[in-house]
């Protein structure tokens, strides 16, 4: 960590090509001048026409943008992926066990392995979930784990997104686009498919249907509506799964069960993949002013008549303050050592740690505990002195509101920039499904910081995406 030259996934330090990138390297060398630029233009047209857009909060002109797509894929070797996916599976199993425990007997708190107050007084903890028995004991069914790589064999988990992780549609569309743009490159490599995701998602959702549901449970995707930044993804996933895309107004409860309003009357719904945050899910139980949710849906869930995916209250397990304890959580529930590293995290409420943080802030990353999407965060080495000072003040004012981590030197991948190929920093979000079994789609979404030297990969902050290839043996 923290070395000056970041690890490049394509080239060794001596300039030779790493094995997984051999075919790509040859292919790149064969491309005619402007070949990549033409491909890039084609890609943009494909995405815009398909309406693959996301909304940028706070941007004034048109609310919709096409997320930049880089035409050079990111490649992960089979053995690298095996190791990664084992670590991911371990993590999601432990976190689900943790959620079950927290909402039942709270053994881990009794054992003193995690401070009780950190959980019980956390805004993300949902007391209404106490004692509920979710189907198959699963709370977080759909997870996107943010991972960064800093060396040939060194991966760190940045965040476990257990609420309503987004971006999986980009993973699928990136692959679709890449296959249209460079079929010849696919022919030279054995790339593990990602197209199975919608089918696996459907199977996962069906596997957690309530006991009373029939052999073909009715699945609905619940979206906040067309003005939500991820609306495209909601409709895309519903379409791919053959499930109904619903807004709150399309659903209602009757006799403790949930129904859709159809042209021919009410139809019972068994599983709801909801992309509405906990707070807005049900005005009867959560925020009473919510217009997006379905009144009574949570009670119907408690009554065992419908399954909500993910369960409310999963946010307690991906809280930035709880994150520090994930290795502890893995040990407590699985009796195993964590296979994937956590990023060391400094606790600003500790006087000594805070003093050290304030001293070294120029080298560190500061994140708001409840921030997301790259907002409310500062990357020390790429920020100005004034920004350092601003965050020092913020930390002093509210030490519990921030976590601080060392600046990781994210790996770089070759990226098409201004008709040239240059290294840019990347991260990785593999998508995990947990139901009757754990299903991890090979690869995931690679986000790339298109600005030279930048470590912020969020699409809202000038990041793009890449197709991610896991090679098969």
């Amino acid at each position, binding site marked *: 960590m923290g070395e000056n030259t970041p690890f490049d996934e394509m080239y060794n330090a001596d300039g030779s090509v790493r094995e997984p990138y051999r075919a790509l390297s040859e292919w790149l060398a064969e491309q005619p001048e402007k070949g990549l630029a033409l491909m890039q233009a084609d890609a943009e047209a494909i995405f*815009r*026409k*398909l*309406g693959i857009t996301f909304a940028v909060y706070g941007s004034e002109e*048109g609310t919709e943008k096409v997320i930049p797509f880089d035409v050079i894929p990111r490649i992960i070797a089979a053995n690298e992926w095996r190791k990664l996916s084992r670590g991911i599976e371990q993590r999601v199993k432990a976190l689900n066990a943790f959620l079950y425990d927290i909402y039942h007997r709270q053994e881990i708190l009794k054992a003193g392995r995690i401070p009780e107050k950190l959980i019980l007084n956390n805004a993300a903890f949902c007391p209404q979930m106490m004692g509920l028995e979710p189907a198959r004991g699963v709370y977080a069914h759909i997870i996107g784990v943010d991972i960064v790589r800093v060396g040939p064999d060194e991966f760190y988990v940045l965040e476990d997104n257990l609420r309503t992780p987004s971006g999986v549609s980009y993973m699928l569309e990136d692959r679709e686009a890449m296959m249209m743009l460079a079929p010849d490159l696919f022919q030279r490599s054995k790339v593990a498919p990602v197209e199975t995701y919608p089918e696996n998602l459907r199977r996962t959702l069906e596997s957690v249907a309530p006991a009373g549901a029939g052999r073909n449970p009715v699945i609905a995707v619940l979206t906040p*509506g*067309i003005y939500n930044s991820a*609306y*495209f993804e909601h*409709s895309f996933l*519903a*379409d791919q799964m*053959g499930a*109904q*895309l*619903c*807004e709150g*107004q*399309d659903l209602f409860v009757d006799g403790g069960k949930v129904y*859709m*309003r*159809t*042209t*021919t*009357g009410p*139809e019972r719904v068994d599983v709801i993949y909801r992309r509405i945050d906990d707070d807005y899910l049900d005005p009867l139980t959560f925020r009473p002013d919510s217009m997006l949710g379905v009144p009574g849906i949570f009670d119907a869930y408690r009554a065992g008549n419908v399954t909500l995916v993910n369960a409310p209250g999963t946010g307690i397990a991906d809280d930035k303050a709880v994150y520090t304890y994930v290795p502890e959580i893995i040990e407590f529930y699985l009796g195993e050592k964590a296979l994937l590293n956590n990023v060391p995290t400094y606790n600003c409420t500790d006087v000594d740690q805070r003093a050290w943080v304030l001293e070294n802030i120029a080298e560190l990353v500061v994140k708001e505990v409840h921030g997301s999407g790259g907002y409310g965060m500062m990357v020390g080495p790429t920020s100005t002195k004034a920004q350092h000072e601003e965050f020092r003040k913020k930390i002093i004012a509210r030490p519990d509101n921030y976590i601080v981590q060392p600046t990781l030197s994210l790996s770089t991948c070759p990226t098409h920039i201004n008709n040239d190929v240059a290294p840019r920093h990347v991260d990785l979000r593999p998508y995990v499904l947990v139901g009757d079994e754990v299903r991890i789609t090979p690869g995931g979404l690679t986000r790339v910081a298109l600005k030279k030297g930048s470590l912020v990969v969020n699409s809202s902050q000038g990041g793009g995406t890449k197709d991610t290839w896991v090679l098969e043996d």
Partner: protein
Amino acid sequence: MRMLGRTAQNLFWLSRYVERAENMARLLEVGYRMSLTSRREGGASEHLVSMLKAAEMDEAFAERHEVADVDTVAYFMMFDPTNPSSVYSCLQAARTNARSVRTAITTDMWESMNGAWLEFSQIKPRDVRGAKLLGLLQWVRQRSHEFRGALLGTILRDDGFAFLQAGNFVERADNTARILDMKYYVLLPRSSLVGGEIDIQQWTLILRAASAHRSYGHVYHDRYKAHNIADFLILRTEMPRSLVYCAHFVRDNLNLLAKLYGRREACHDAMDDLLKLVEGTNMDQIFARGLHDFLNDFIDGNNRVTDTLSASYNFY
């Protein structure tokens, strides 16, 4: 998979708004041509105002503009986001509806709709004058055709298709009735001119608004006569914008719904009532009764079809 009531509603209105955008363009084109060729004093303004009246937009227009000239009327009907029937508002509403039912329409339909909106929303009103205005009006028509082509060529013939088609033809019937009614507004003050040169010229433009000025000749082999033209736009089953044709089309699609869902609803009765107006009658009877009253009854009946359809299939 059963269809959400909201999806049915979005499909119905998606088609209606595309058709309405096209009709706004047609109407404006007629108003524009009338104003160019008018030989009467103050004629240009008068034609434009009567056109606005026919579209029931005269009051909304008067709230925003003092003078009705080509520029103000063109802006109001094409670009004004505060006018819910402007081409801009229609395309935006159509696209919003399409986005809400993205999974219920085909990729071709979506691309056509999304492309039309993206292009139109880039246009700056001040760049569109004179010949450019006519070009843009044609463009709007063509995009509407393209959307309909994508629809007919790609979508499953299921309930979604029926709602889309019903919306399209309910709107078209409404529009044809209103274009005919425009003639009533234009002529009302000067009924002495019936049969004169101006009268013929106005009828011509009305035919043009329905893209029917050439097909008229094929059907009637005669010069323009008010009787024939009204007959053409109201009662001829081979004329794809006539009231009777639209009504039959809507009926067929409502029947498709009844077949798919296995039962008739209140909207089927409302449809029967509407059909009674245009079937088993002729132009002499309609003129004797008064064209304006007839058209008003038709528009009301047509609205009842929408209202009952909305209730029957759980629009909300």
